[in-house]
C-alpha cells in the first residue's frame, strides 16, 4: 500500500530554484570618464592620470576616474577654504539648512539610479543598496539639514563655531552612505568639505557631485577628489585642512594620528572591529539564527561593525550551528543586480586575496571550516559564506578583522566568561546579544566595551543614532548629536 506522504511527495516539485530577477540598468546615466569635482565644476587632473573603476561581479571597466595629485588636492582645499570664508560660514544657517534639504530630496528622487550604480561599482546586492544604503544616505542629509539653524540648542551651556575645511576620507563598503555620514553634519554646522572616496568605489560620490550641482550649492562648499591612498595622504597633510574625518582600517587610522601629531588639526576616526555576537540558551533560536546571518553576511561581511565572532552558549551550540549551516545553504550568491541575491561580489581582488589568506590561516591553525555549497560564478570576485568552528581565543581569526563573509564560532558557559572573551580584542566598535531575559541584555550592553550594542537585533543604523568605537575601533561618533559635535568648536 502506498502511504499518503509518498503520494504527496510525488505531486510536489522539489525544484525551488529562483528565476533570475535582475534590476534593469537602462535608466541610469554614467559617463565613461569622470573628472575631479572642484569649486563646483568637473575639472581635469593636472597630471592627466585616470584609473578604472571596475565591476567586481564581472571584472569589466565601468568608467575611468581621475586620479588627484598633490596640486589637485591643493586646488580643492583652496576652493573649500575660499567657500568657507566667503560664503558658507557667513550664510544664514536656515539657508544653509535648505541647501542640505535639497540634496536629501534630490537623492530620494534618484534613489533607484544610485542603488544600481552602487551595486555595479561595489558588488553589493541591489536589495541592500536599494533598501538600506541609498535611503539611509538621503535620511542623513535630511536629519542634519534640520540641525543647521538649531545649533544653539545642541550643546547645553555652549554655542558652536564651525571648524573650517574638513578633509574626509571614506571607505568602499558603503560608498554613498559614508559620504552622507561625513558631508551632512559638516555642512550643517558650517564647514566646507573636501571628500576623498575610496579607490574602488568612486562612482556614487561623483554622481553626488552632479546632485550638488543640481542643488546649486555654492561652488567649493563640497569638493570631491578621487584617487588612491596617496590622494588621501595629501589631504591629511595639507596645512589648510582644519579637520580630518576618516573611516577605514585601524592601521591607516593610526598612521593618520601620527601624521597629525603636533598639528592643530582635529580628527575623528571610525576604524576596524571584531564584534562579538552572543547567543544565550534562552534566546529565540530561529530569530537568533536569522540575526547571525544578518550580522556577518550583510554586505558580504564588508562591515566594520559586523558580528564576526559568534559566541554560543554550550547547551544550544549544536542546534544553532546546525540551523546556521542549513540557513547558509539557502543564501543566494550571485549577480548583485538580481533582486533575489543575498550575497554579492567581494569588493575587489585585493580584498578577496586578503579573505583567502585568512581562510588559509584558519585551516592551518587547525580550525574546522564550513562553506555553503553555492555555485561560484566564473568571472568576478566571490567568497562563499564561511564559518569556522574549533576556535580558541588566541586564533588569529578570532583576533583580527577579516572584513569578509567569514564567521568564527566559539562556545561559552557563563555570562562572565563570555563578557571576558567578548572584550578580549583591541577593538570595541559593536556587539550583539540574544536572549529572552531583559536584565541579561542590559548586563551585556553595560559590560561590553563597545560603542554600539544590538540586543536581539544586529546591524541597524539610523541618522539619529550615534555610531563609533571604543579602544582601537576609533574616536568620536557619527550620527545624532554626537556626530554634530565632531564638526564644531564649543565656546
Amino acid at each position, binding site marked *: 500500500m502506498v502511504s499518503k506522504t509518498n503520494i504527496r511527495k510525488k505531486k510536489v516539485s522539489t525544484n525551488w530554484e529562483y528565476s533570475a530577477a535582475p534590476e534593469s540598468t537602462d535608466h541610469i546615466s554614467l559617463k565613461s570618464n569622470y573628472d575631479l569635482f572642484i569649486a563646483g565644476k568637473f575639472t581635469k587632473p593636472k597630471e592627466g592620470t585616470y584609473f578604472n573603476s571596475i565591476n567586481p561581479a564581472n571584472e569589466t571597466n565601468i568608467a575611468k576616474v581621475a586620479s588627484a595629485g598633490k596640486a589637485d588636492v591643493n586646488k580643492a582645499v583652496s576652493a573649500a577654504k575660499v567657500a568657507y570664508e566667503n560664503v558658507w560660514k557667513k550664510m544664514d544657517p536656515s539657508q544653509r539648512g535648505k541647501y542640505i534639504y535639497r540634496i536629501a530630496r534630490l537623492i530620494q528622487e534618484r534613489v533607484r539610479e544610485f542603488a544600481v550604480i552602487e551595486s555595479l561599482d561595489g558588488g553589493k546586492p541591489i536589495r541592500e543598496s536599494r533598501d538600506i544604503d541609498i535611503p539611509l544616505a538621503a535620511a542623513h542629509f535630511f536629519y542634519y539639514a534640520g540641525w543647521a539653524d538649531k545649533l544653539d540648542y545642541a550643546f547645553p*551651556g555652549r554655542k558652536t563655531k564651525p571648524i573650517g575645511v574638513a578633509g574626509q576620507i571614506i571607505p568602499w563598503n558603503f560608498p554613498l552612505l559614508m559620504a552622507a555620514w561625513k558631508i551632512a553634519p559638516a555642512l550643517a554646522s558650517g564647514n566646507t568639505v573636501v571628500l576623498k572616496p575610496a579607490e574602488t568605489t568612486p562612482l556614487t560620490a561623483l554622481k553626488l557631485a552632479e546632485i550638488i550641482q543640481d542643488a546649486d550649492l555654492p561652488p567649493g562648499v563640497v569638493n570631491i577628489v578621487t584617487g588612491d591612498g596617496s590622494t588621501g595622504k595629501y589631504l591629511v597633510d595639507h596645512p589648510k585642512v582644519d579637520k580630518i574625518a576618516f573611516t577605514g582600517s585601524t592601521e591607516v587610522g593610526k598612521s593618520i*594620528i601620527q601624521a*597629525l601629531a603636533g598639528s592643530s588639526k582635529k580628527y575623528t576616526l571610525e576604524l576596524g572591529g571584531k564584534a562579538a555576537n552572543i547567543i544565550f540558551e534562552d534566546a529565540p533560536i530561529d530569530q537568533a539564527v536569522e540575526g547571525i546571518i544578518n550580522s556577518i553576511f550583510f554586505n558580504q561581511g564588508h562591515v566594520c561593525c559586523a558580528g564576526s565572532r559568534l559566541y554560543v552558549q554550550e547547551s544550544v551550540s549544536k542546534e544553532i550551528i546546525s540551523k546556521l549551516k542549513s540557513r547558509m545553504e539557502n543564501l543566494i550568491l550571485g549577480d548583485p543586480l538580481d533582486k533575489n541575491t543575498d550575497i554579492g561580489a567581494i569588493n575587489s581582488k585585493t580584498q578577496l586575496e586578503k579573505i583567502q589568506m585568512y581562510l588559509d590561516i584558519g585551516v592551518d591553525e587547525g580550525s574546522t571550516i564550513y562553506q555553503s555549497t553555492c555555485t561560484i560564478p566564473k568571472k568576478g570576485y566571490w567568497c562563499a559564506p564561511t564559518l569556522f568552528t574549533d576556535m580558541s581565543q588566541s586564533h588569529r581569526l578570532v583576533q583580527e578583522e577579516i572584513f569578509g563573509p567569514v564567521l568564527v564560532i566559539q562556545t561559552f558557559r557563563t555570562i562572565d566568561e563570555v563578557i571576558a572573551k567578548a572584550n578580549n580584542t583591541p577593538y570595541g566598535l559593536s556587539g550583539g546579544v540574544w536572549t529572552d531575559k531583559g536584565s541579561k541584555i542590559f548586563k551585556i550592553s553595560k559590560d561590553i566595551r563597545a560603542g554600539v550594542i544590538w540586543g536581539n*537585533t544586529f546591524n541597524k543604523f*539610523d541618522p539619529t543614532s550615534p555610531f563609533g568605537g571604543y579602544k582601537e575601533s576609533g574616536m568620536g561618533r557619527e550620527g545624532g548629536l554626537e556626530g554634530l559635535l565632531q564638526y564644531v568648536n564649543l565656546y
Partner: protein
Amino acid sequence: MTQSLHINKTYKLYIDGNFSRTESGRYIKWIDPKKKMIINFCRGSRKDFRNAVVSARSAFKAWSGRSAYNRGQIFYRIAEMLEGRKEQFISELILQGFTKKQSKKEVTLSIDRLVYYAGWADKYQQLFSRVNPVSSPYYNFSTPEPTGVVAAIAPDNSCLLGFLSVVVPAVVGGNTVVVLASESYPLCGITFAEVLHSSDVPGGVINIMSGRHDELIEQFSSHMDVNAIIYCGADSGHASMVEKNTALNVKRAVKYADQNWINPDAQGPYHIMKSQEIKTTWHPIGY
C-alpha cells in the same frame, strides 16, 4: 622648655592605595625657595608607572560600577577631608614660594572644585544621554561611559587646583587614573594622597606619582593598557610626542597648553566628557 625638633615628612608615591617608595630607589632633591628645608621626593620610574596602571585597571570595573550617587558622596567626602587639612596645604604652598594670599585662594578654590564635581557625578549622564528617535520599531538610547584608565600629566602652573581640575572630572566620570604630579611644585599633589586615603576612595582609583616629566611622559603616553592621556604643559615637543604615541592604541588625547585653572572655563561637564565614550543600545519593540 627645649624647642621640639621639627619632624620632616617622607614624601612617597601613592599606588594601589599604598604609600610606597619608588621601586627604583631614586630620589629628587627639592629645596624650598627660602632654602630652609630639604625634601627628597621619589623619582618615580617607568616600572612604578606600569604597576600603577595594573592597579588602575583592576580598580576600574568596581569603580565604574559604583552608583553615581556613591561616587558623588565620595567626592564630597574628599572635599570634607581637604577642608580639614586646609592649613597643611596652605603651609605647603607657602613653603613652595607662594604668598599666603595665593595659597589660601588655591586651597579654597580646590575645595570648591571638589564640591562642584561631586555634584556632577549623577547629572552629566542626564545631560549627555539621549533617546534617539530612530525611524524603525526599535528603542534606541545613548549614554556616556568612562573610557577606562586615564594617565595624566598634571600642570606645573597650578600644583593643587590644576592637579584636581584634570584628575577629578575623569574620576567622577568613573575612570581610574594614574597622575604625575607637578615637577616644579610637587608637594601638594603628593600630599593629596593623604586626603584620598581618608576619603573612602578605593585603592587604585587614583594613583599618584612624582618624578621627572621628561623621563616619564613617553611611558605615560605609550602604555598599551591606558585608554586616554591628559597632557598639561606648553612644551610643544612633549605635546607632539604624546600625540604620536596615542597612535599605538588609539588613545584619547586631551591637551591643556596654557589653561588658567582659576577661570570659569577650567571646570564644567564638558571636561568630564573628555574621558567618556558614548554607547548606543538598540532593542526591537514588539511582541
